[in-house]
């Protein structure tokens, strides 16, 4: 069920933009297609939307190859915003609704409801180029959601948004996922979207490097860090855990990396047996740390924020 992306390959001349990318997008689960700039995310989304044809591989939806008719029911928001500058905001949304197959009256009532949801209800008659950047961004979202798409694909929807807009866009996407839509978006700002994605497909240089549920990937990464504030500075108890490594040990602050197979709570107990623990915490790796580990890249090559 949902979207199945299988072995997609695509080359631009000699440059292999996509080299066998495979992953699934499950309905109701917000999925992030993550990776640095130039990883091939936009190319992959364009292939899914039929704007580009892959050299090989397939995109399937509900077990069938995706056709033109399926895509007409999808919603797509490309990376660079595309709106008619001279068109009134409301007409714009109605036009795209009709292109997606709605009747004029359906498109109009849906457009009104959406602009209200996105806080643009009093802008119906305003020319698009008279709206602020943030409003145009929301209008663009409206044009891709007007036909209640069952599949929503967004390319870098968060780039250039202020924190308030990030929260409100996230809420809109969560709400669509809750009612069972298949939601896929791409981003290079891994840590910004860490809390929004439930599943991720991480790509680098055209290949998938990390797949699966964010919570599970972070918990099982083996890069969990246990943070302890212990007195006195007795570290003898650590010798019982030879696989636990000390990341830093300054004054009373101790930071330990706890590999898979060792329960961090056991380590905490051992520390408490050795001395008084004032403060503690378990830090899971961020998505960018996971990416660095998976892509085996030095930090200076990464563009993350």
């Amino acid at each position, binding site marked *: 069920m949902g979207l199945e992306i299988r072995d997609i390959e695509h080359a631009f001349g000699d440059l292999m933009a996509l080299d066998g990318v495979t992953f699934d997008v499950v309905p109701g689960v917000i999925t992030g297609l993550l990776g640095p700039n130039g990883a091939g995310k936009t190319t992959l989304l364009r292939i899914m939307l039929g*704007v580009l044809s892959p050299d090989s591989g397939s995109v399937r939806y509900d077990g069938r190859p995706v056709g033109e*008719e399926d895509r007409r029911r999808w919603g797509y928001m490309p990376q660079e915003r595309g709106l008619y*500058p001279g068109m009134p905001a409301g007409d714009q949304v109605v*036009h795209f609704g009709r292109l997606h197959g709605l009747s004029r009256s359906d498109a109009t009532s849906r457009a009104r409801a959406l602009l209200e949801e996105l806080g643009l209800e009093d802008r119906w008659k305003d020319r698009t180029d008279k709206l602020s950047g943030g409003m145009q961004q929301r209008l663009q979202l409206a044009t891709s959601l007007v036909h209640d798409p069952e599949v929503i694909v967004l390319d870098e929807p968060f780039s250039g948004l202020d924190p308030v807009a990030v929260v409100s866009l996230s809420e809109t996407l969560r709400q669509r996922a809750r009612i069972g839509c298949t939601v896929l978006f791409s981003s290079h700002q891994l840590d910004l979207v860490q809390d929004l994605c439930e599943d991720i497909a991480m790509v680098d240089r055209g290949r998938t490097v990390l797949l699966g549920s964010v919570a599970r990937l972070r918990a099982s990464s083996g890069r969990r860090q246990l943070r302890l504030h212990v007195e006195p500075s007795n570290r003898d108890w650590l010798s019982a855990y030879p696989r636990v490594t000390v990341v830093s040990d300054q004054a009373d602050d101790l930071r330990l990396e706890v590999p898979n197979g060792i329960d961090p709570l056991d380590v905490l107990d051992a520390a408490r047996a050795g001395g008084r623990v004032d403060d503690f915490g378990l830090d899971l790796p961020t998505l960018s740390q996971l990416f660095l580990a998976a892509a085996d890249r030095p930090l200076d090559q990464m563009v993350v924020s």
Partner: protein
Amino acid sequence: MRNWWQGTRLVAERGLVENLRSRAFKVMTGLLLLMSIAAVVLPQILGNEATTYTLATVGTAPANVRAALDAAGKSAKFTVKYVSGNAGDDVRLAVRNGDASAGLAGDKLYTDAKGGGTFPVVVAQAVVSLETSRLLVEAGLGPQQIAALRSVRPPQQIAVGRLDSEGRAGTGFAVGIILYLAITFAGTAIATTVAMEKSTRISEVLLAILRPSQVLVGTVVAIGTITLCQLLILATPFAVAVQVTDKIGLPPVAAADITLAVVWFLLGFALYAFLFAASAALVNKITEVNSAILPVTMTLVVGYMLAITVVTSDPSGGWSVLASLFPLSAPMAMPIRWAAGEVPVWQLLLAMALTAATAVLLVSIASSIYRRALLITGHRVKLREVLGGRAAS
């Protein structure tokens, strides 16, 4: 197929509404209408100053001569003024000095150096007719017999020369100019729309929903409709004037010629429109449109030049035949040849078929260029980048 038309219709509808709403369209159409009205009305106003002739006579002109001339003036739309002199010399001098168009003194009719045009003939006829009537009365004929004699007319003269002479050739020429201008204007409008859609990235959203051919055909239909409407607006005052008065100096044109002109506009427009659209898809910034469409504009200019030079001078020569059959020049060359009346029907049909087939072929080539070029941004796309290689789906 139903969906193809539905999507195409929506693209065309949007293009129409946006164009009709734009200030540029309103201003342009208003100007066209004004120009057209002026072209029809001004000659009427200027030409309506009734022609006035002056007849100089010795003493007051005889009442019967006046009556005959005024009657002739009524039917031929001129008025006659009279001046009188004391002697034959006064009359002669009046004509010589240009104070009178003709002078009547005894049995002499004075005219200016060039013979004075038609007025002296009219005066002479009036004098002859009056004198003849007087003699007939003296000979004892009754008024009925005289009226019967005077109703004798020379045989009616009807021109039967072929219309292919100057008037019709002029029409072909005018059609060529109008087609050339209309295609240039409409082509630029199409190129601007495509470049705008590419530079604002709307095209990417459109391509996710529609096929390139739908976007292209929709855009071309919208702008073609608008241009055709503007042409009709341009033609309306002429049509009205022809209905209201027959005094318009239009050359005698068969309705078939006008119909052909419209057909050629549609064919020529379809052909060039897709060339304009495909070239505009290559731009990176909207300001590059003019240089991107230059090759198309040049082709159009060359076709037009061929039409007005080669074809006009020798409509049945080998080069003319070639120019009127070759799809890129046919829309301008064929109407001129056709107007000259030297085209076998099969050549006309062949030219139309070739042009239409090329237009259809261009839709698919342009769609393929369009789809690939739209995704290449950041630099001017070279034709080499979008031709060859994998076929567009």
